[in-house]
């Protein structure tokens, strides 16, 4: 996994080079490092390069990326690149924020590749600890400080629970390797009963991960923390943590396939309540950012539906959904950040941008259609595939998710009501910058992948 090394050493280098520099001046360098890492993972997944020889010192089988996990890891890295590229830099000197984001990304990559509970735990911690700091990176902002502290306390709590669960799993199976757990469970299945330690352990470990992906009722931190954190960090949490969390969760559940009927029993209610609560709460929000927080909760609900089925090694469907969610959410966060003021955080901020900045308006429309899952965007393909895959095991969950999707239209489309509204003659004001290239790429990819889903087969 050369990408982890690239990101880690790149971040270190940036940290030192950028000691006395404006963040803005090194943003492109950071993006290039992430791009390079993304390309390297992608090339590995396609078998173009092979760097396993450099990593013989890693204990065998603790970190293994199967092809799908590799693609998701590439998506994760590219998402980090997009976020760093799109969202504005802080004005003070020092590269600490971007370096911390990259360290956190290393944790995310580790989570996706983990085949061992301890590695998973390490990944979660490496992902989370920088985020605790990042949430409060605007040191003068009292809400940021509050968010940081809240996230830290609750994160510590969930970590403790995860660790307890991991201990139980070790106690029940005598191993921490996924594949050995799977072996033990297959034996247990043969005798018709699973050890109670394993059941308790899986519940607790799942709670730790459900907390990370903010499923109801472990979601309470997310609206508060998103709202308090700087927009860039909120986007990072909404996208990177969710992608890494779900990929790791799916990877973990491959070890528990024999217990699938059992765990789907109690995970179905959780996913159903997540879908419903996420969507209904989002409907009631005034702040667009809080709405995005709840919308990300509802997406967690849809994604959980997919986890209810017995998970095989290839979970492309999950990857496609995470890609579509990541692209759409990144653009929405960017636009929110661009137009929000300290007084106004409602959808009113988008009033008339169809006239002042057609380009942003177009991006807003495409991204909204994507997260809402409307045809002609990748969002539809992703949602369609996800629901189709989840239908056999979770019929009622999928039906409920369809209702949830219908509700989601009414809050996602709120900006459309004001997009074309304008009081007086407004002059278009577009100053083309590097950002627009990135935004154009993201927007186009949502449409192109939606129109030609064949391309997805090539990516995965």
């Amino acid at each position, binding site marked *: 996994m050369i990408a982890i090394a690239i990101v880690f050493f790149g971040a270190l280098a940036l940290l030192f080079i950028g000691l006395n520099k404006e963040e803005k001046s090194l943003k492109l360098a950071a993006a290039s490092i992430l791009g390079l890492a993304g390309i390297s993972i992608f090339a590995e997944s396609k078998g173009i390069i092979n760097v396993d020889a450099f990593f013989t010192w890693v204990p065998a089988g603790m970190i293994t990326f199967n092809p799908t996990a590799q693609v998701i890891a590439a998506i994760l890295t590219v998402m980090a690149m997009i976020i760093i590229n799109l969202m504005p830099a802080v004005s003070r000197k020092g590269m600490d924020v971007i370096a911390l984001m990259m360290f956190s990304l290393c944790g995310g990559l580790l989570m996706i590749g983990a085949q061992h509970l301890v590695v998973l735990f390490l990944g979660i911690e490496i992902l989370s600890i920088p985020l605790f700091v990042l949430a409060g990176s605007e040191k003068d902002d009292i809400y940021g400080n509050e968010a940081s502290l809240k996230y830290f306390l609750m994160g510590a709590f969930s970590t403790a*629970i995860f660790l307890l669960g991991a201990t139980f799993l070790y106690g029940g199976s005598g191993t921490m390797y996924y594949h050995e757990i799977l072996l033990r469970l297959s034996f247990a299945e043969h005798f018709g009963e699973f050890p109670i330690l394993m059941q308790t352990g899986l519940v607790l470990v799942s709670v730790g991960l459900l907390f990370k992906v903010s499923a109801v009722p472990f979601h309470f931190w997310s609206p508060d923390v998103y709202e308090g954190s700087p927009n860039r960090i909120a986007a990072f949490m909404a996208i990177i943590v969710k992608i890494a969390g779900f990929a790791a969760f799916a990877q973990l559940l491959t070890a528990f396939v024999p217990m699938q009927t059992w765990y789907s029993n109690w995970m179905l209610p959780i996913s159903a309540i997540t879908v419903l609560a996420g969507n209904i709460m989002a409907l009631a929000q005034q702040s667009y950012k809080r709405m995005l927080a709840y919308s990300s909760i509802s997406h967690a609900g849809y994604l959980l539906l997919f986890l209810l089925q017995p998970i095989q090694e290839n979970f492309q469907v999950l990857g496609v959904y995470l890609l579509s969610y990541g692209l759409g959410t990144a653009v929405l966060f960017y636009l929110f950040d661009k137009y929000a003021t300290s007084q106004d955080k409602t959808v009113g901020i988008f009033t008339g941008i169809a006239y002042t900045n057609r380009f942003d308006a177009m991006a807003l429309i495409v991204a909204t259609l994507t997260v809402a899952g409307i045809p002609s965007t990748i969002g539809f393909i992703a949602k369609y595939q996800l629901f189709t895959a989840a239908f056999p095991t979770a019929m009622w969950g999928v039906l409920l998710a369809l209702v949830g999707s219908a509700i989601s239209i009414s809050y996602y489309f709120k900006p459309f009501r004001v997009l074309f509204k304008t009081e007086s003659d407004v002059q278009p004001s577009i100053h083309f910058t590097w950002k627009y290239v990135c935004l154009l790429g993201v927007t186009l990819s949502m449409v192109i992948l939606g129109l030609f889903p064949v391309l997805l087969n090539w990516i995965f």
Partner: protein
Amino acid sequence: MNPIALILLFPLLGFALNGTIGHKLPKGIAPWIGTLFIFLPFVITLGQWDILSNDVEATIKWDAYTFFNLDGIIFKAAFTLDRLSIWMTLIITGIGTLIHLYSISYMDHDPNAAKFFSFLNFFVFNMLLLVLGANFLMLFFGWEGVGLCSYLLIGFWYQNASYGKAARKAFIMNRIGDLGLLLGMFLIIKNYGSLEYSDVLPAIAQGTGGSVLLTSIAILLFIGAMGKSAQIPLFTWLPDAMAGPTPVSALIHAATMVTAGIYLVIRCEALYALAPIANEFILWIGLATALIGALIGLRQNDIKKVLAYSTVSQLGFMFVALGVGAYTTALFHVTTHAFFKALLFLGAGSVIHGVHDRQDITQMGGLKKMMPLTYITFLIGTLAISGFPLLSGFFSKDEILASVFHHNIVAYIVLVIAALLTATYMFRLLFLTFHGEFRGTDYALKDVHESNWKMTTPLVVLAVLSILGGVLNLPHYLLHTDGFLASWLRPTFLIFENPAHTDITTEIILIGVAISIFLFGFIYSRSRYITKNMSPEQSTAGIEKVLSNKFYIDEFYQKAIVRPIEFLGDILFALVDTLLLYGLTFSVHPILRFIGRFNRKIQNGNIEYYLLYMVGAIALLLGLNLLFA
């Protein structure tokens, strides 16, 4: 590059160019782009003729793209250029080129000429998609596409509200027919598992599928054809479609789009050959349309409306031919009709242009001196459609009459009456427009002018074609073998078409009838409008009033269909919208407010509470699992 790709590419390119940058180009460029990009496919198509004529089995295929694969049913964009589709393609691009050329001058003063040409090119593209498609899916794409273009072009002068309404009417009536076409396609998918002609039609020809199934599919597809080809009861849109610019009427509503229904039936020849009930249905619908169209045409005073009803009636003739199984004859009439009806429409356009955008023949008369070329070509068109011996219309109509004669004598008599009326109303139109005294009151005869070469060249070319078109399929009694078109098309038919060869006596009688039909129409109209010098009837009483009011069919539809639907709409609005949906929506609001308040209480920002909820949830999960373990 595949020739089919090129044929399709140019009109699409013309559409894209004119649609995007056309209005920014120097004046006069856009129309020529449009014309050139129709002419090029014509040349390319002609280039393929040899390949097809050298080998009876040859077809040119192009598998462009697979849309998706649904449980083994493959939906793809596949095209085929066979003997039938090359014939249609030549008509579409050939006559299309002439009409584009004509439009350059006709739309000269219109500020939106680039838009007009872009729509016109897009129409040709869709029409080519329709005839070149190798499956029902592509046919349907083209079918909808030409419908859309027809809508856009009828309503081209959308500032006039009634033109917009005419466009909407055309679109909606076509949609009714499309529903039939769609249902037919669904039945095909369900029973044959494919939409490819090459899968479905041979299967049908080999006897797969019961007679009920075949009849249902045949009738459903025909309902689609009824909408597009303006057959009773879905024909009232076509006369209203005359709101569009005259070249549009010539190209779309006379020569090409309205014959799509006939193309569909010919394409599915294997299906219709095995569905006799459906054939009988088509025959009588066609007969009724031919008769009613001709009757209404007798008492219309708008130059384009007369031609529109004439088109309705002539399309009825074609369906009669299809109903008796004479597919070649139908295509022959499609071809000759494309020649002379396009000629007549363009001539009418020239007249309208010459008299400064007036269409009312009560305001015309005596125009032949001022517009000699238009007059002569219009006369040729009239002679051709009325069946003057040895002109194109004579041969094609005679063939239809002969086939019907062998099939059903009652139908033959009805058709003879319709043909008689055709000659009558056409000469009435000719005499009232070009002969006699000038009757205009709001403008002077000296203002009338002949059109320029861009408009008259197509007229002359089409006039020559109208005269000579008959050679394409000369009858058996002249050649003692099959006509050219009949032997050309034979390989494309899956079930052998057995043409009715008659003995020479019957043939002479039939020809005699045909000639006397023409003579009667000519003499009757001449005695009325030339000798007695009658002016156009302002029909106020009796049957004439019924005719000039088009049998009150529009009014009938309004009362019998539109009103009840509107009434139902009102009821549904009151019940579903107001009561149910509004009620639901407004009752959601308090629920949301309640949830919001509840949420505010639990999401209160206190981390102690959050942790408590989490612990509670974990306890619940573990407890339930241990209880039910």
